[in-house]
């Protein structure tokens, strides 16, 4: 126990260690942040193509989306990361952070697409019919009726996907990137503290804090979106 406390003092008393952890954490956040944005944008496009009414113009795009999500969801993330690093972007001097962002973004898009697709499909068809019967345009129905209701269904699952991406980025240490996970391993190694427990414990706390914060924000958004579900509203 004394040793543990000593190690804590050593970690927090050594600016280089703190610096490494913070740098690693920053890289983790950067990769996750941009990957999530790519995931949401691309995922939305895939979901819209997938849920659109079948027509001859969409036959090929729909097929491509199916193949894409099947491949991404059917292969390990670590393998996708390797393929990006050692095959597709095996260009000397190409910034590894960009490669990682693309790898995680393309992966997240497939899962986000499923989340958004499910959200759109779970909107009661009667809600669409109400709009149609009133003579509203499909576009008005989509933006005023389907989208707000779908978002309510999407937010909780999207929150999970964001959390998953943040945690999954830890595998970039497998291609030698210095993220939070790698920083913990490095600080704990023989050349440094020669003890893994404290740096890894601290890294875990960093991840936990970030993820707890995100869950909290998602819960708040969920709560504000639930306004119209409440039987108590306006009473």
């Amino acid at each position, binding site marked *: 126990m004394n040793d543990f406390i000593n190690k804590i003092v050593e970690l927090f008393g050594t600016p280089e260690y703190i610096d490494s952890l913070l740098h690693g954490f920053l890289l983790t956040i950067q990769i996750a942040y941009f990957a999530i944005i790519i995931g949401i944008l691309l995922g939305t496009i895939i979901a819209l193509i997938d849920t659109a009414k079948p027509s001859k113009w969409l036959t090929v795009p729909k097929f491509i989306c199916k193949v894409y999500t099947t491949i991404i969801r059917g292969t390990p993330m670590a393998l996708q990361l390797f393929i990006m690093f050692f095959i597709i972007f095996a260009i000397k001097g190409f910034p590894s952070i960009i490669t990682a962002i693309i790898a995680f973004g393309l992966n997240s898009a497939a899962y986000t697409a499923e989340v958004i697709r499910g959200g759109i499909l779970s909107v009661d068809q009667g809600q669409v019919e109400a709009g149609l019967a009133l003579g509203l345009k499909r576009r008005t129905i989509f933006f005023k009726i389907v989208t707000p209701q779908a978002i309510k269904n999407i937010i909780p699952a999207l929150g999970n996907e964001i959390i998953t991406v943040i945690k999954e980025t830890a595998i970039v240490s497998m291609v030698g990137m210095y993220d939070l996970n790698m920083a913990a391993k490095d600080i704990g190694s023989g050349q440094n503290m020669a003890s893994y427990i404290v740096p890894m414990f601290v890294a875990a706390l960093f991840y936990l804090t970030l993820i707890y914060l995100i869950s909290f924000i998602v819960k708040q958004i969920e709560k504000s979106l639930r306004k119209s579900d409440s039987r108590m509203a*306006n009473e």
Partner: protein
Amino acid sequence: MNNNTELIVKNLHKNFGENKVLKGIDFKLIEGERVVILGPSGSGKSTFLRCLNWMEEPTSGEMYFDGELVTEKNIRRIRRNIGMVFQHFNLISNLTVMENMTLAPIKLKITKRDEAEKRAKELLRHIGLLSKADAYPASLSGGQKQRVAIVRAMMLSPEVLLFDEPTSALDPESIGDVLSLIRELAGRGMTIVIVTHEMSFAKEIATRIVFIDKGKIIEEGTPVEFFEHPKTPRVQEFLKKVL
């Protein structure tokens, strides 16, 4: 009552995949008529009603509204003149009662927002639900939802109102409220087509009864003809069971 024809349906067929639900229906609706569609469950009566405003696109056949052939191109404009009330109310759950009522008139640029809101308030006051104007549908009872759905349809001043089993999802106590609102619209000369299982209401409100079975119109006539002197054995058998 004048004799303006609102709607003509010629040889209407509707298939769901292999399943032939409507097998050649001819139908004419005159302004001011109140047609009640009866039939056993699975007869195609709801599908027929839903074909009238193309909630279900007919597989074949022709439809004319106000003399104009209904097509995929003009159906959206025509729907403004055909209000519909659904069995499950279908109030838009992310919009308040007021927004439900004013969305279409504003979006279709029929009235300005303040005019639409004024009219919505009048209608809500009339049905005793003005205090619910800013409430979301989830906080309303079934009967309240359906009455809002009816006045929402009235916001566009349609020429025809379609009712698809408007009381089937309601508790007995709310049924009376909804029926009296429909009765009131009928009294004001509204042209109505209604699918219902409320036999006494059908008898009371209808100017004509249409009986559908297995996707075809088997018999039609005035309520007196239909209920007192049914011509076909199928209707006689049906009435024996339900009355």
